[in-house]
Each structure stands twice: as C-alpha cells, then as structure tokens.
C-alpha cells in the first residue's frame, strides 16, 4: 500500500508545511450522522493518507455523500469527529474549507455565466483572485479553452464534468473531494476524467471520490472503503480486497467433456452449464486449465473459446453484503 503512495510523488511548498509526519491527511473517528430516524452514517473510522486516490464504494443511499458532507463541514456529525490536515472540521470549518476542492453530485453552475466567469466567481468565493490568463490556462488544462465563452448548457456531459473538476481545483486545494465524478458519462468521457484525476494526484493532491462503478474503483483508486447502510464494511487496496475474498475463478469454455471427469480435475469446485458453455469453478485456475487441456486431447477435442474470469470487486461486494451493488 505504501509503495503505491510513494510512486511519482511530488513535493510542493504547501505540502511541506502542512503534511503531518504520519501522512494521514483526513482522520475520521467514530463518525455517525443521523437525520432523524435515518442513520446515514454509523460509527465510521477511516484515515485517508496523503497523496492517495481514495474511493468510497457503495450502492446509492449507502451514506457516501453524507460522509463527504461531514468532511466538507456542511453536515454536523451526531457523534465523532473529522480532522482534516490537523484541524477539526466542526471547529475550524473555514480554514478546512480553504484546503478543499469540491465537486458535488449536482454540478452547481450558474445558468447565465460563461465558463471563464464561473471559474473567476468560484475562485473568488475562496478569496483567490485569478487573472483572465490564469483562468484560460486552467480551462485549457481541462480541454475547455475553446469553450471559455460558452454557457454551461452548451456543453456535453463529459465537458460539464470536466468543468466541474476545473471548478474543484480553482482554489488550488490540497485535497480534492469528488462525489460521483463519472456518473452518467460514456466510457470515453469516463476515461478522460480518470486521466485528470490521476493528474491531480500526480501534482501532490489527495483525492477522495465516491463511485458505484466497480471497475472505476478497481482501476483508479489506491485504496477503497466499501460502504453499505452507513457502515464501513471493508477497507483495503483493490487487490487486497479481492485476495481477502479467496474467491474462485470461473473458467468458461464450449468444449463438450464428461462432467464427472472435469469435476475430478485438480482445483475444481463446481461445474455447471450455461447454454453451450461449460462453466468450471476453480480455486486453482492454472492447474484446472492444464487438466482440461489433457482431457481435451484424450477425447480428441479442441479446447476452444476458453476464458478465465478472475474474481473482481463486484464479487467482493456480493460476498460482503449478499447483494449486487445495483440492487
């Protein structure tokens, strides 16, 4: 985990001043947030380390946004506390907010302002006053230079999301908090947003994001906290989470072999059919494939159309909650 963090880390003046020796940039302890009877967040302990991309993964309504709101200082915890860069969010809200760059689920654009005017206004809210050339440089970085004089309703979904990211860093924050930055985007636009998020991190910013896309969490995040019904139910690297599952791989092939012989192969824990496809569940994919190959030769058949599906975060989620994330 540490090795991922130290890769391509850049040190800036700001960082040197404010980074604590432990490297913990956000410290959430015993956090609970209740809205009346609704227990949105229940006793969460969580530390975000400096320079990582941290993902909160969970279904809609799991409490991800509420957790972010507690970090942002816009919701009062029922219990527990959140410390950002050594400051208590509830006590030093304004100081904390100056170090955060925010993108909420709604993009929060003023209808009648042009892109460059929006950047100027949002930076100004942090008492950061940008010149026109600084604004254009920022927009150019998000591939929006040509749209500087456009209104946000004239932008595509991907462009709007990039604009939201531009507004999130217009105050040069150390921590960037993104609530579902890629929801509703097509795969290409999603990848463009991922590239930007990786860039923000390469500049030495810490990124905290929420998502309900498994592949996004798996590809983008260094560490993932899985949230379900207001509780943090798992916390690790994507690889670590999958490893901890000790889940079986699934081999799929169209070959026709006697089921009893396949079941006897090393590693096999189950065989079933799905149409033309034989699905072989195994805890040792390597040995099982080798055995299948041998069986195929013995039966004078060709081992074709073979795929191996490794367990992924989706399986982790199902194993932990007994549910699919979109249910």
């Amino acid at each position, binding site marked *: 985990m540490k090795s991922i963090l130290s890769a391509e880390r850049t040190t800036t003046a*700001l960082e040197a001043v404010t980074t604590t020796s432990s490297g913990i940039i956000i410290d959430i302890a015993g956090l609970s947030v209740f809205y009346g009877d609704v227990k949105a967040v229940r006793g969460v302990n969580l530390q975000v380390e400096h320079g990582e991309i941290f993902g909160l993964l969970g279904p809609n309504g799991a409490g991800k946004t509420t957790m972010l709101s507690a970090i942002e200082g816009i919701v009062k915890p029922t219990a527990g506390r959140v410390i950002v860069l050594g400051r208590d969010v509830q006590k030093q809200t304004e100081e904390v907010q*100056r170090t955060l760059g925010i993108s*909420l689920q709604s*993009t929060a654009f*003023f209808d009648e302002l042009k892109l460059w005017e929006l950047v100027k*206004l949002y930076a*100004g*809210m942090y008492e950061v*006053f940008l010149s026109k050339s*600084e604004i254009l440089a920022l927009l150019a970085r998000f591939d929006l230079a040509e749209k500087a004089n456009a209104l946000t309703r004239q932008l595509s979904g991907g462009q709007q999301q990039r604009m939201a990211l531009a507004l999130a860093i217009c105050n040069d924050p150390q921590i960037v908090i993104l609530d579902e930055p890629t929801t509703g985007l097509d795969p290409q636009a999603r990848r463009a947003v991922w590239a930007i998020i990786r860039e923000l991190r390469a500049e030495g910013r810490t990124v905290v994001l929420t998502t309900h896309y498994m592949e996004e969490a798996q590809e983008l995040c260094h560490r993932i906290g899985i949230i379900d019904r207001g509780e943090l139910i798992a916390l690790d690297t994507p690889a670590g989470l999958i490893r901890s599952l000790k889940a079986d791989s699934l081999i799929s092939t169209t070959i026709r072999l006697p089921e009893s012989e396949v079941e006897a192969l090393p590693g096999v824990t189950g065989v079933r059919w799905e149409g033309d496809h034989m699905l072989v569940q195994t805890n040792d994919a390597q040995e099982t494939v080798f055995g299948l190959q041998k069986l195929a030769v013995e039966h004078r058949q060709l081992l074709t159309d073979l795929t191996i599906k490794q367990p992924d975060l989706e399986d982790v989620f199902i194993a932990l909650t007994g549910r699919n994330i979109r249910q």
Partner: protein
Amino acid sequence: MATNARTMTRTGGRSATFRRFMLLVQANFLMYIRNKAAMFWVVLFPIGLMLIFGAIYGNQTIGPESSGLTLISFITPGLIVLSIMSNGLVGNAGAMANFREKGILRRVQTTPLPVAHLILSRVVMQSCIMIGQAALMLATSVVVFNARYDVAGLLSALPWIVLGSVVFMAMGQAVAALVRKEETVSVVTQVINFPLMFLGGLWMPVTSMPDWLQGVSKFLPSTMLADLVRTPMLSSFHIEPTIPFAMALLGITAYLVGSVALSARFFKWS
C-alpha cells in the same frame, strides 16, 4: 500549470472580503442582464404598460382639471413599484429556488463564502438596477408623454425606491425559504403578486375602490411603497397619500423585518 495555480494571488483580511463582494456584485449583474425573463418583466413590461396606458388615456388629467396632474404622471411611480415587485418578489424568489435546485447553495456552503454575502450582493446589485429602471421610466414618461415631476421630489423618492427593492427582495427570499420547489415558488409568488399589483394603487388611486377593498389595500406593502415613492415625486400636485407617511414607513419596515426573520428561520440549503 499546477505551478501557475500555486503562484496565484492569495490575499486575506478585509480587503479580500471586499474584493470578493464586488466580484459577487459583478457576477450577479451579468447574470441579471442576461436573464431574459428578468429583462422582460422588470424592464420591458412596465415600460410597455406605460406606453399602452399613455396611448389610451393620452394626457388625460385626474382630479380637478386645474391641478394639471396627468394620468401618466400618476401611474409612472406605480409602474416603478410594479418593477420593484417583479424584481424582488417574483425574481428573487425564483432565482433563490433555482440556485437551491441546481445545488449552487450547497456548493456555496462548502466554500468559505458566507451565503449571506451572496444574498447581500444581489440586494446591492438589484437596488442599483431599480434606481436605473426608475430613471428610465421617468425619462420615458417625460420624453414621450411630457409628464412633469418635482425634481427635488425625485431625489427624495430615491431612498424609498431602494428601501422598496430591499423589502420585496426580502419577501421573495422568504417565499423561497418557505416553499421548496422552484415551480411551486413561481406559482406562489404570482398568487401574492397579483393582488398586490391590482389593490396597491399602482395605476389608480386607492380611493376609487370600494370601501372594503380600501381596507384591505391599506395593509398591503405595495400600497405603502406606492405612497412612499409617489408622494414626493408628485409633491407639487399635493396629492393625498393613502396611508400617513409614518404608518407607511412603519408598515413596510414590519414587512421587511418579518420577511428577513422568516427567511433566516426557514432557509433551506437543498
């Protein structure tokens, strides 16, 4: 680029707060003049009404012939009040509900900017627009219809135009705080706006209404504001206000205090 962003000006203290406030005023001004609905209802509609009234009634006088008080001179202050109402009650309530629905208020809450500064910057900007709009309407009535006003009276009406703009914006703010959805907000403000418009003595003297309506009329903020603005503007014609000056001032202040209290108590971030 990152270094670019890191070298940018970072100031603090009172001067930065003032600079930020002026930035807000400027941004809100741009939003305002680009908003077609606001431009229509606040600027064009009252002037259009004046032109229609003028075309129908010409230079007809009200009261005794000898007074020389034309209908246009009488209704122009009323139309200024109409503009203030559209701007404040309808416009501000709609804008705040829109900000809320788009998540802008939540987003502002995550920044160090107090939301009161955002609202105050809109009050400052729109009060300036109201002064400009009043000047435009007075000029139109003078140029097109040869209306006459008392110059010293115009200046002494100025504070009431500003006060009225603040009062009606506060009322809009209160409606936006009490009603959640943007669509409902627009219906509610229209429902309030209608009687205020027709019973407020904007284009006919309240005394021409039946007694029971006059009774209602005297409690309306539009009647109070129309009195406050019209009486000094037409001071040379010695027209009698519907409500005594002190009562009008007291009444409209009560509306202001009540609205501010309601908006503060029921303010919704999302």
